[in-house]
């Protein structure tokens, strides 16, 4: 139908930035200025690190991208559409196009690995046949096929994060947001997760990773946005953590 807004198509087809922040400020009720006058854009297919010390405003950026919170001023655009103008029903459609991974994994402890991944499909009302087909495929990609019957508590941190990654990717998102995905992992598992994220990016998914991990950022030589005290202090198209500090 002419004029009907379908954010899913818009996100997949556009040449305009996937994410565009325009002079965004966010103040919390306690009077904290979480971010100050931030402007940047992320284009389709990019792999972007957002780095900075604790309290620099990195996670606030993720929350704004997810429309978990609203900016105090300024505008956040996704696929050319201003997020604050999205209707309630459009927000859930929008979020279906984004995969999210958190530092604390956020798996459902009372469900198996398979059920956790299937849950993401169930939530968007995928047909049962599609769930049965897609879930094992995704578990195979993250290397957890044999643990599909295990519960989260029976897995290592790295394995739990891989389940979270499988859950984030199972609905074929246009963009993947990872908030400190290696924060609770040892170096070996951290690299395993980063390898998977890079793989996902190579397949065309835009990946935004918020991290503290200097070693990984330096080694991967991707775009790095550096935050400090709520201010964007540098945006290097291809650099490292150390490079960004200069």
């Amino acid at each position, binding site marked *: 139908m002419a004029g009907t807004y379908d954010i899913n198509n818009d996100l997949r087809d556009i040449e305009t930035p996937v994410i565009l922040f325009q002079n965004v400020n966010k103040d919390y009720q306690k009077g904290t200025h979480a971010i100050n006058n931030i402007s940047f854009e992320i284009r389709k297919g990019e792999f972007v690190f957002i780095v900075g010390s604790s309290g620099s405003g990195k996670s606030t950026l993720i*929350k704004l991208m*997810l429309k*978990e*919170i609203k900016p105090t001023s300024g505008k956040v655009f996704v696929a050319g559409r201003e997020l604050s103008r999205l209707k*309630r*029903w459009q927000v*859930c*459609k*929008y*979020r*279906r*196009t*984004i995969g*999210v991974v958190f530092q604390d994994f*956020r798996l*459902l402890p009372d469900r198996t690995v398979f059920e956790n991944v299937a*849950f*993401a499909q*169930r*939530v*968007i*009302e995928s*047909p*049962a046949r599609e769930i049965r087909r897609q879930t094992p495929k995704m578990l195979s990609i993250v290397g957890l096929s044999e643990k599909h019957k295990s519960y989260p508590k029976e897995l290592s941190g790295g394995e739990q994060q891989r389940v979270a990654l499988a*859950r984030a990717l199972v*609905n074929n998102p246009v963009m993947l947001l990872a908030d400190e995905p290696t924060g609770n992992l040892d170096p070996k598992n951290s690299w395993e997760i980063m390898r998977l994220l890079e793989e996902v990016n190579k397949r065309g998914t835009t990946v935004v990773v918020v991290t503290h991990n200097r070693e990984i950022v330096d080694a991967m030589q991707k775009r790095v946005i550096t935050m400090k005290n709520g201010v964007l202090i540098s945006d290097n198209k291809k650099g490292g953590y150390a490079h960004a500090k200069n």
Partner: protein
Amino acid sequence: MPKISTIIYSVKQGTKNIKRNRMFSLASVGTITTCLFLFGIFYCILMNFQHIIKNAEQGVSVTVFFNEGITSQEIELIGEKIGQRVEVAKYDFVSAEAAWEEYKNTKLDPEHAASFGDDNPLENSAHYIVYLNDVEMQEVLVRYLQSIPGVRQVNNSEAIADVLSGVNKGLAFGTTAIIVILLGVAVFLISTTVTMGISVRRQEISIMKLIGATDFFIRAPFIVEGIIIGLVGAILPLGLLHVLYNKGIHYLMTSFSSPLKKADFIATGTMFKTLIPVCLLIGVGIGFLGSFITLGKQLRKIN
């Protein structure tokens, strides 16, 4: 329109929620059961009381006497006018002869009665006995009857009508008040159960929202939970009431010492024909409303 798989999923999750919050679910079922049990008891008592009062009301009548020398055609005309009134359930004509006959048989000893011979001292006492649909309408009807030409006197008992109408109003008011309070308690408990359910599943709901679940998908299991609790909370007291009503009526009608031995109670089948749908509707309604209202409040708190 939700998919069938989503509806099945919601029912499964709703059932799981009940199992997870076993204690709160039991407390809610218990409260609704108590409420509806009490409601059922009041309902049965009220309905039977009203039934008995209705029977008593049917005994309350107004007597209409005519002017002296009135013709039988005029009496018939008055009868027709009475019969057209909505307040009137039925009316009977009592001739002067029948009135004297009854008076003789009930008030006089045979010897005294025989002394009157063929004379009828109640010659001008032909009358209509008018029975009412509702005692509260008596006053209006009496006013109308007094205004009919040819009517000499209208006898009625205001005291009985007032008492019966007062009892009716008092019972209805008292019962309504108690039921409203009990239903309020039930809604509060359902709301607490759902709140507990939401707090236990806070993380799951938060993940659902982030993944892009619709409001319906998130709410449906909790609504199902409320409805199941309401449904079970309605079925239990209905079963209990059915057994108790049967036994209670049987006891009251057969017990040697019961003052209600001759009372005309409503049959179990007739009573439960109304009570079953009413209780089910209230139970499901409380479950639905309790969870629906709580969900709106609680889900806004989760991002």
